[in-house]
């Protein structure tokens, strides 16, 4: 944490024809952090990554890395490497030649390259695979070779474009932890693009949520999840139940006019009409009477393996999704459709959002 703003992107603007891909975007990435760019497809996150790599020349704005303005530098002059979504391994070269490519281009000697390639192969646990061709490796092995190739030249900043999207679920879980561990060991900054919220929450030191070419919110995973700034962030990071509400003058008394009840929030919102977001895992069915509660009817249950989602219809017809723990087994969590229930929650579970 020597330099808080290791990478500074200011006022970045990119237009493809008449479509604006990046709309005056600002971003700071710190030294030694894993920063995740999260957004739906078309949000501009890949364009931003390509700007950092030098593949897209911005129409306006500046990119400064470690005090050096990189905005006008072509890709081959940037101290930045990219791990491509398709891996882009050179099919006509061996694994060792792939990993050594960047070193050779930057003038490393043959012996030096060999040594570093061997070290990288050890790092990704593919010793003895140096002579293979990329086509002879499994998807997971190719992914590791691509990672090693982009890390071999020891970049100041590593860009990863959906690095886990081509892996199957089980492998993806392992690789997340692996990437985080690797980054800590190497002590360099990663900027990782993904559309997978779980991936973002689990791996990131900080997340930047993008929408329509803008940065909507930047923060730690917990900050974004607990205190999203708007409906988009609230529903993009973890599903949220969203109800229309009217926030009282004190900011914490919240009226739900459609249900004819009033609840209390802990973190004050802006007085006036707004939205109340409730995470399904913070809701509880039955139990002791709580400060905040509404009545409803169970319409069905969705079994998700690690939890049971109970769908509850409220008086105005809106639906609440309530996550029930399976700590006492599936049978005690399951509720019959049609049974009336009371859904309650703590004041600090209220997330008040602007309309």
């Amino acid at each position: 944490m020597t330099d808080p703003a290791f990478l500074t992107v200011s006022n970045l603007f990119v237009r493809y024809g008449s479509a604006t891909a990046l709309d005056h975007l600002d971003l700071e990435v710190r030294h030694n952090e894993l920063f995740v760019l999260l957004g739906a497809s078309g949000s501009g996150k890949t364009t931003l990554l390509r700007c950092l790599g030098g593949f897209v020349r911005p129409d306006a704005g500046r990119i400064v890395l470690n005090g050096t303005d990189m905005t006008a530098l072509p890709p081959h002059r940037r101290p930045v490497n990219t791990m491509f979504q398709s891996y882009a391994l050179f099919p006509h070269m061996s694994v060792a030649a792939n990993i050594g490519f960047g070193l050779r281009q930057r003038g490393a000697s043959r012996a030096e390259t060999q040594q570093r390639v061997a070290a990288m192969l050890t790092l990704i646990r593919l010793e003895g695979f140096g002579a293979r061709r990329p086509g002879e490796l499994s998807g997971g092995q190719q992914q590791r070779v691509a990672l090693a190739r982009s890390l071999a030249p020891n970049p100041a900043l590593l860009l990863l474009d959906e690095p886990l999207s081509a892996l199957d679920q089980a492998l993806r879980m392992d690789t997340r932890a692996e990437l985080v561990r690797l980054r800590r060991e190497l002590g360099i900054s990663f900027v990782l693009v993904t559309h997978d919220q779980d991936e973002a929450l689990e791996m990131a030191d900080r997340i930047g949520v993008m929408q329509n070419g803008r940065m909507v919110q930047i923060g730690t995973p917990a900050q974004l999840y607990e205190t999203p700034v708007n409906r988009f962030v609230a529903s993009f990071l973890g599903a949220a139940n969203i109800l229309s509400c009217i926030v009282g003058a004190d900011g914490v008394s919240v009226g739900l006019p459609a249900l004819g009840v009033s609840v209390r929030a802990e973190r004050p919102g802006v007085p006036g009409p707004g939205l109340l977001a409730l995470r399904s895992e913070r809701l509880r069915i039955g139990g002791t009477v709580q400060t905040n509660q509404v009545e409803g009817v169970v319409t069905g249950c969705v079994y998700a393996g690690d939890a049971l989602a109970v769908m509850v219809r409220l008086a105005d017809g809106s639906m609440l999704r309530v996550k029930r723990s399976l700590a006492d087994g599936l049978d005690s969590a399951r509720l019959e459709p049609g049974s009336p229930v009371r859904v309650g929650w703590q004041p600090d579970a209220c997330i008040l959002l602007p309309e």
Partner: protein
Amino acid sequence: MRWVIGLPALWLLVLLAAPLAIIAVIALAVPADGIPPYDLGFSLDNLWLVATDPLYRDALLRSLRVAGISTLICLLMGFPMALAISRAAPRWQNALLLAVMLPFWTGFLMRINAWIGILADDGLIARLLGTRLLYTDAAMYIGIVYTYLPFMVLPIYARLSRLDPALMEAAADLGAPPWRVFVRIILPLSLPGVAAGVALVFVPAIGEYVIPALLGGPQAQLIGKVLWDEFFANRDWPTASAVAVWLLLVLVVVPGSIVRVIRWLRRAHAVSGANRRAVLGSTASLCGFSAISIFLSVLRA
């Protein structure tokens, strides 16, 4: 459903293998006065004559040189064209490809005759340059390169357009300046297309006799013209067939060695399984194509 595969095999047998066998039989026959102008037999005289007589040998060597130079020019012109087309905006690519293939809309002889007008002594180009063009080697090369350039451009384009752009970006990302991206990534990965293009130009160019006859000088004979003359002017079918047999041998040996060279080049770059298959595929198509073109040139003769 097996018979469906048998059909093309039958086609090849009837239209390729059988005529080749007939040519081989005639090449071993003895010339005679009559119809047909040979007596069946087993004589190596014709093959020996064609191999040793300077007339045939020089014509073959000259044809090899002409085809080689033409192929080289086509490659030097065709590769940048193919690269440019593959890099053009998608909506332009089809228009540019159409432009490459547009000459095929007009008959071959018409186009060569048009070149006679363009290259004539009182034509624009000859006047601008202040030199004779028509009925020289230069005119012949212009005609051959003009005719066969699309056969070089198309297979190279097909290869280049399938290259993942991320490969080029990855190379640049790892520090390779544009020229090294070309040398290390684009060129080696386009070699199968180059091999196909070289074969598609070299093989028909070696048997070419119409363009040299219409545009080139009268001085030296090419093997295609010799073949024609033996068949039609001299009515010496056995000698003509012997020429065809030798030409076929040359055409199998030359592309074979080209493939060797490419293999060797690729080994320097290390070959992936997929690419090895591509090289094998182009080898097979090289052999197939040379056989077909021999057959066609014999058919034309």
